[in-house]
């Protein structure tokens, strides 16, 4: 198992460099540079600024300088917000986005998986239909619609939770629910389908025949084998949630990373955009790697050399 995983890890390194190079070239070809703000500026000042950011050097030399700094943990300075270090933005804001994403993941899994298992266990009963209908509706509702509803009802009307901001458990609940509940619907449906597929297998019937109770069957045999498709989805979901929802962060005034991402792209802020792309690529690589480990753990048959 170890050699398999180490091989996977080493395969990621050239991919990482490839992503960084492609991203680097890509941002430089966006029409309009970071300094095309329309503000009055002298020719000399523009030259000085370009020199300050190494933009007067050949493209590949710029890439080499950039990657060298990145490997030392320095993502450079924003080209639009002078004095703002890209690393400080990531370090300062990503934990917030990640916290929100993880909380949303907990909501999605914590509500979705039990609902799916329960619906599978009570297949074709009223409860099953109610749950699956709720799941479909929940999945269809855009998260920002849900967010506004939650703010109006639980925030303004009942005053159970603050209307926005960040800093305590009470600030986390509404955004996490808004972000996670729609996914709970998807997770519920997937879990149910996966469980049903697993429950129809021969070894389940054997387990019952051996005298194992419902709970034992579900927990010891069915759930673990039904986990595989779920794991794939959870990995993608985790990556999706951790990279944040700009809209939810915007509505709740959460100081996450989404705002800076959009801002940097619209402003052609090369260093900031690149910093985010490379950071996220690294996060996603890591998430995928964790999924690989999970696959091997869940199903020992997956250990392709």
């Amino acid at each position, binding site marked *: 198992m170890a050699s398999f995983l180490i091989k996977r890890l080493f395969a990621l390194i050239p991919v990482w460099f490839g992503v960084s190079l492609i991203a680097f070239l890509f941002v430089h070809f*966006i*029409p*309009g*540079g*970071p*300094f*095309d*703000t*329309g*503000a*009055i*500026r*002298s020719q*000399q*000042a523009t030259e*000085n*600024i370009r*020199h300050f950011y190494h933009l007067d050097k050949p493209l590949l030399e710029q890439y080499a300088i950039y990657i060298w700094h990145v490997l030392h943990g320095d993502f450079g300075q924003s080209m639009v*917000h*002078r*004095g*703002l270090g890209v690393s400080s*933005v990531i370090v*300062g*804001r990503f934990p917030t986005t990640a916290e929100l994403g*993880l909380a949303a993941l*907990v*909501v999605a*899994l*914590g509500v979705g*998986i*039990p609902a799916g*298992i*329960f619906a599978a*266990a009570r297949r074709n009963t009223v409860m099953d239909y109610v749950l699956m209908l709720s799941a479909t509706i929940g999945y269809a509702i855009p998260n920002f619609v849900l967010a506004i509803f939650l703010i109006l009802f639980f925030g303004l009307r009942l005053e159970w939770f*603050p*209307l*926005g*901001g*960040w*800093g*305590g458990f009470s*600030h*986390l609940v509404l955004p996490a629910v808004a972000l996670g509940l729609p996914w709970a619907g998807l997770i519920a449906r997937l879990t149910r389908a996966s469980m049903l597929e697993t*429950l*129809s297998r021969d070894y389940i*019937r054997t387990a*019952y025949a051996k005298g194992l*109770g*419902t*709970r034992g069957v*579900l927990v010891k045999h069915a759930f673990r084998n039904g986990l595989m498709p779920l794991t794939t989805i959870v990995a993608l979901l985790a990556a999706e949630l951790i990279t944040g929802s700009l809209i939810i*962060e*915007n509505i*709740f*005034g959460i*100081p996450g990373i989404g*705002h800076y991402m959009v801002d940097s792209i*619209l*402003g052609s802020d090369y260093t900031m955009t690149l910093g985010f792309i490379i950071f996220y690529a690294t996060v996603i690589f890591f998430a995928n790697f964790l999924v690989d480990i999970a696959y091997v753990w869940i199903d020992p048959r997956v250990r392709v050399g």
Partner: protein
Amino acid sequence: MQVAPRRSQAVIKASMVAVAASLLIAGAASGGQWTRTDAAPSATKATHASSVLRVAVTQAPDPFDPATLADNRSIELAQNVFDGLVDVNDAMKVVPAIAKSWKITGGGTVYTFNLRHGVHFQNGDLVTAKDFVYSWNRALSPKVASPDSFFLTNIKGADAVTKGKATTATGLKATGKFTLRVTLTGPAGYFPSLVSRWPAWVIDSKDVKAHPTTWDAPGTLNGTGAYKLVRAVGDSQYIFQANPSYFNGAPKIREVQVSVVPNATAAVARYQANEFDAVLNLDSPSILQVQKSSSLKSQFHSRPLLRTVWLGMGYTTAPFNNRNVRLAFNHAIDKAALVKVALAGQATPAVGWLPPGVAGNVASSRKDYSYDPELGKSLLAQAGYGSNGKAFPTVALTYSLATGETEQAFEFIQNQLQQNLGIHVTLKQMPANAFNAAMSNPKQRPSLWGYSFGLDYPDAQEQTTYLGITGAGYNFEAYSNKKYDALVNAANASSNQAKRAALYRQSENIRLNDAVDVPLYYPNSTWLVKPSVKGFGASPLYSRKWFGMSIGN
């Protein structure tokens, strides 16, 4: 396969426990983390110390180094921390600040500033003329690469500094401990206005030399202003405290908490819940929301900015090289309706190209081209277009969403042109940077566009010289009129402010008679403020400094 009912009870229980547990775990795991002392406190509700002002802004400021500040929202906050030789008041007149007086000699090329003797930085260091020499040379140096070095390049020798050929400008001398002599390359009546602005604010040379990378961090940021930036919570909250030894007197408000709430609608909701005393710079959705509420409506304020939004046209390219076509456009757009319908009333219909509030504007003295579609049609016919002439070429009205520009405004204009002149223009919205890059490139420049320009310093010199005269870098219309140029150059050179204003007014009339563009509207700055806060407001440039405010009962 059917599951026995009794056994499924256990499953239900287990699922519920799982849900509850996961939520609790999430809470517990995170709860410990959030008792960190730098966690952003959401502003306290209702009863708070009456000398704390809580303001909501929609954008986090950049680090506060005066030499590299670039956006208005940062400057708006930084103006409370730093001062310059002079300042501008709400009427956009230059008034003394750290300089108590100044003399202009040498035919308008030598300015001698006499500084106050007892001004101190917030760390206690005394402000001397040498600090100004240091600050200005630093703002010119290529190492700092300030985008706004042009504010100071009127000074003799400054150009060499920006090119890296010198470290100090020869025209910049501290002739005494508190005397600063500035020699310019030529007479420039707008020089005092220039040095009222941020690139010329003074920083502590001793402090910056000793702490080159940390001097501008929250807590150690050191200016001469009425407020000191003591703490920043990430970039979502900034705490400022009054500087009791401010040279103009001790501020009345003890502390200002600036919270960044990117969504203006959310900021208004929290303002209603009494979390904020003021909200700056609302957007259209939140303004509409405010106007629906009777309680909020009375707390909502707006005033015109030193900014004009206009419809630009290619002066030297068909079809706009024909004055009748440009005049037709000027008569075909109902600006009052545009402001009312497309901008929710949050603008003023424009008469002149220079915005009101700056000396030399004609916004109140000149009669605008009338809204007269019939006249527009006949002018178009005179130009050879229309039903009896050739078809008007299809043009793309190109624009970006710079300050004050909205999609609704341009959709309205498109509609008016169709309705009133029978001309169909397509709309092309571009991201700001791509738009500006296209405008700067004569090959990519559109023939019809929307443009928004706001003055960086309250002097007509900026707009006329950089956007108006022949060959100017931002003169995208490629307008050229020798009389206009002569008037602007004369106005720039004179030191007699009344004479300058008159000259700029003449230049405005020439430009408007040539119908170079269609000035559309002057956008507003907007804000919400509780009645208990006295002195809150805005100048045409930014929201007012906190120094003059108080919180009464």
